[in-house]
């Protein structure tokens, strides 16, 4: 049915010259395309720009991560692509359909879920809820139950299916959400922080499930997250986003390689006073830094993206000069957070504090 739609696509597009440049529907490999996407919201303080001219392309069967701190614009992008929100300007398309003009066509081939959602009817069983959601897509009951069983098996939900929704733990409600997200055999799935608030083992099983869905069924999965380990583990490509702009887009490995030298990690005591790390940003060869507190050990950890050994030594000297004791220091292979630090100058936490 979809193939038929794609074959018919050029005729549909004749009256949509704006989208024609954005989306090449003949190239069926591109499933999500965004061009110059901008979204503003009204607030008491005036206009707030959530997305500021975003461009990206996602291919069929790809798990694509959109990585950024809270408030970067990730959820806004997912809401536009899943037809919950209109762009202020620019274009976005899913499976060749324009989010603005053809939302009904998009809704038939997508699904979306947020890891933080607990959407379900409390006094209905998990199975009953999932059957209900399947009916929103007009799936025959027999087929729906088959899919519910298959998907639940993959997520270890099978023995909880007959429990009422309110009696499920957070982790199992999240599994129900993830079964729902694939119940209609979607071509494209949008997941917003799919493993947020979950324990490590549950998060791992959910990641495996997502990987299987992309590999075995050729679904395109776009994940908005601020979890770098998740992106590293399952995403084919990642776009790093901050303040509504895409700063970089490549495979996780390529992004990390782009930093060149390994980054420097310092454990210091006492914790840095406010503003005491600012001189680091002015040192030659320092691309950015971020700090966090290891509360168990009572130490602060400073991660600095440097371009070589000389800069690393300058950083250690500068930290000592500002009155902190360097308890230990080492160099480590760059992580995606350090890629973000190198691009923005600061880490996720600092960015989120700035936004707050």
């Amino acid at each position: 049915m979809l193939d038929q739609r794609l074959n018919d696509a050029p005729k549909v597009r004749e009256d949509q010259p704006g989208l024609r440049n954005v989306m090449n529907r003949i190239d069926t490999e591109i499933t999500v395309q965004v061009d110059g996407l901008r979204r503003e919201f009204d607030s008491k303080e005036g206009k707030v720009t959530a997305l500021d001219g975003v461009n990206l392309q996602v291919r069929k069967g790809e798990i694509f991560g959109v990585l950024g701190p809270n408030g970067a614009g990730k959820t806004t992008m997912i809401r536009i692509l899943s037809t919950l929100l209109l762009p202020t300007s620019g274009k976005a398309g899913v499976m060749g359909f324009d989010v603005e003009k053809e939302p009904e066509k998009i809704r038939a081939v997508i699904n979306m879920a947020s890891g933080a959602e607990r959407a379900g009817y409390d006094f209905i069983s998990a199975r009953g809820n999932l059957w209900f959601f399947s009916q929103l897509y007009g799936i025959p009951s027999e087929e729906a139950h088959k899919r519910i069983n298959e998907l639940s098996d993959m997520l270890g939900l099978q023995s909880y299916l007959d429990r009422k929704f309110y009696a499920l733990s957070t982790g199992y409600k999240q599994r129900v959400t993830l079964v729902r997200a694939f119940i209609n055999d979607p071509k494209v799935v949008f997941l917003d922080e799919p493993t947020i608030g979950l324990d490590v083992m549950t998060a791992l099983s959910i990641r495996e499930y997502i990987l299987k869905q992309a590999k075995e069924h050729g679904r395109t999965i776009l994940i908005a997250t601020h979890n770098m380990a998740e992106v590293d583990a399952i995403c084919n490509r990642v776009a790093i986003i901050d303040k509504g702009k895409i700063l970089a887009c490549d495979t996780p490995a390529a992004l990390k390689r782009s930093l060149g030298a390994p980054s420097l990690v310092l454990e210091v005591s006492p914790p840095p006073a406010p503003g005491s790390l600012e001189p680091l940003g002015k040192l030659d060869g320092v691309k950015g830094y971020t700090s966090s507190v290891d509360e168990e050990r009572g130490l602060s950890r400073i991660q600095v993206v440097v371009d070589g050994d000389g800069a690393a030594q300058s950083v250690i000297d500068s930290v000592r000069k500002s009155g902190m004791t360097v308890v230990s220091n080492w160099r480590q292979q760059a992580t995606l957070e350090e890629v973000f630090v190198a691009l923005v100058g600061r880490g996720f936490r600092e960015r989120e504090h700035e936004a707050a």
Partner: protein
Amino acid sequence: MRLHSNPWLRTAYARLWVRAKSIYGEPLWVAVNVGFPFFTSFSFTMVYRAYGLGSYAGFAILGGVMISFWGNVLWSMASQFNWDKQVGLFEIYITSPAPITAILVGMSLGGILGTAPSAAMVAILGWIIFAPPIHPFWPAVVLVFSLTLASLYAMGMALSSLYLAYGREADSVNEALHEPVSLISGVYFPSVGQGISPFPFAVQAAASIIPLTIGMDALRQSLGFPIPIPFIPLYTEALILALMAVILLFSSSRALRFLENKGRRTGSIAVRQR
């Protein structure tokens, strides 16, 4: 196309099933749904008897039956989408290809199916205990009862879009609406009709825009309750109820489409689940 493969019917049936199953899923609710309307009817009947108006017991019993539906419309229809929005269900509806009218119709039919046994129980208990004098013309009773439910639930659908737009305080609005509407629409006593309503004509006319008022009056007439002069002739009331149902259905569908478009522009369809 077979009926059961029609997506609109599938959605409506699924929503009906969820609503009815939820109502019966909690035994305490079933007890409360029967208990509260019956005890209120019982109190009003006692008051009528104390004043030597035992023949008015039917007013109170009919009130107990209809208040169950009114409560269901207000608490489970009007505020439902607002509640759905808070927990993330509304965005699931919007991002699915399901027609929103099918969801509303399913919700209404499920509400009627879920409330009907409690309402029937109140009617049976009331009839057995108080034996009110009635002279029903059953075809008219069935007709106006069906039209009353249709217009009442259509009003629930229209209110659901209003609550969606302005419903941050849905529970407070429900509290504020429940008793005043019960009072002016004459749930336990006739609020319209010359020689029997305690309200001036202006209040009676204003109350008539609520489907419950006209529906209750039509039911009293069709059941042959002791009413000196009918407010409006029975079949005119039936026609008004039918018109109300059509207008409210149409306007709720338009309002929801408008709100969906507005919500996509302003970002108000979804609540951030954090």
